[in-house]
């Protein structure tokens, strides 16, 4: 598992570490009973205060995602079913960040949700459609959809 921190991300560093572990569980880079780097290793690698790493590990341990085997280290829980709960936690984090940003800009929740759908449809369209005519059609469809909602 590779953890990278984003200095521009305004969330506390420990939460960034928590999220990255969750992500690694979701995409399969981390699996049940896999060992995690020690607090010391991760602190040295990321050049962060070891307390930050400990805090992240405590949080994950509290959620039952990882556990500590005395004298051996920290491991992913044997009965982890990352799909549902981890995915939910991850989505929640992304949603919370988007909401903070929306409120700062004086936007309504509904406006944000509608626009996310619109943008997603547009991007999907751009990926799958190559001719300008089709892209125009997709944009028109998006606009119609937005208007209907």
């Amino acid at each position, binding site marked *: 598992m590779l953890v990278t*921190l984003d*200095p521009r991300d305004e969330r506390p560093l420990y939460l960034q570490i928590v999220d990255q572990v969750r992500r690694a569980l979701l995409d399969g880079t981390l699996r049940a009973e896999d060992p995690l780097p020690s607090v*010391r290793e991760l*602190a*040295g690698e*990321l050049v*962060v*205060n*070891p*307390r930050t790493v400990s805090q992240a590990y405590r949080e994950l341990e509290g959620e039952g995602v990882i556990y500590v085997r005395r004298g051996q280290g920290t491991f992913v829980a044997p009965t982890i079913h990352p799909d549902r709960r981890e995915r939910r936690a991850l989505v929640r984090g992304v949603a919370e960040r988007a909401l903070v940003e929306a409120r700062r800009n004086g936007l309504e929740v509904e406006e944000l949700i509608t626009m996310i759908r619109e943008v997603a449809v547009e991007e999907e369209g751009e990926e799958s459609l190559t001719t300008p005519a089709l892209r125009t059609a997709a944009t028109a469809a998006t606009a119609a959809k937005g208007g209907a909602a």
Partner: protein
Amino acid sequence: MTHPNASASDYAVATHGLSKRYGRKTALDQVELRVPDGAVYVLVGVNGAGKSTLFKMLMNLERPDAGTAVVFGLDTGREGPEVRAQVGYVPDRQDAPYRSMTCARLLRHVAAFYPEWDHAYADRLVHALGVPPQQLVGGLSKGGTRRLQLVLALAHRPALLLLDEPTDGLDPVVRRRALALLAEHLADTPTTILISTHHIQELESLADHVGMLRDGRLVAQMPREELQRTVRSYQFEVPDGWQVPQELQATALRRSSAGRDVRCTLVGEEQEVTGRLVASGARVRQVSTLALEDAALAFLPEDAS
């Protein structure tokens, strides 16, 4: 969050009214430093703000004109040697003593003073930082001296590290390695660290407390989250003839404006500050958090950057 009820023993380092003048220049003015036990406290300030003077006073290498400094409950003026035994110090000055000794010899020499000296760890540090054992101390480059000083400060695993610009003169690769070693050191050994730097951004993820020193005065000190929560950049639109509201005036730190758009760094809880801006007729358009460095620089004079 500060600890109004905390007793002196909760602080690894505390100074009370610490003041120092050199001739007509005030080096330190009534400094009330509070470094919580186990903290990584970053001291920020421009050159000449008094950082090095403060470090020297904690080491009892300089005498204050007024006030006291207490390290682990010991008065640094009366119990200097006892204090120094528990401290690893990387001084601001680059010229190490014992210029005619080899690095290896100096390490053995210093090791003899500390019963806690960890020889295996010292060897590891020498290797990791690339200190040349057979080279004369006097022949080391600026960066080489810094690396040797770091080994000397860390190898006896002191309870307190006083690091005055410890990465000064190191190239970026060694700089990062030194900071990684510091992070590992913290994981292995319970240590309080007081560290001064010109490069706050490199300590961004290690720091948990920050103090801002300006013209010898400690203008603010607080936990890092508090600094980043309460110092933010506000962008807003103002009506003609708009004035900064009275209650924000004292904290309106940096301001730039283009037409009716004003951007300034303000201190306070976001909701409260936004409320006051709105009450003054401003339309708040955006609030953004600042990197640790920018938040800290808000307390320092404009020409600091």
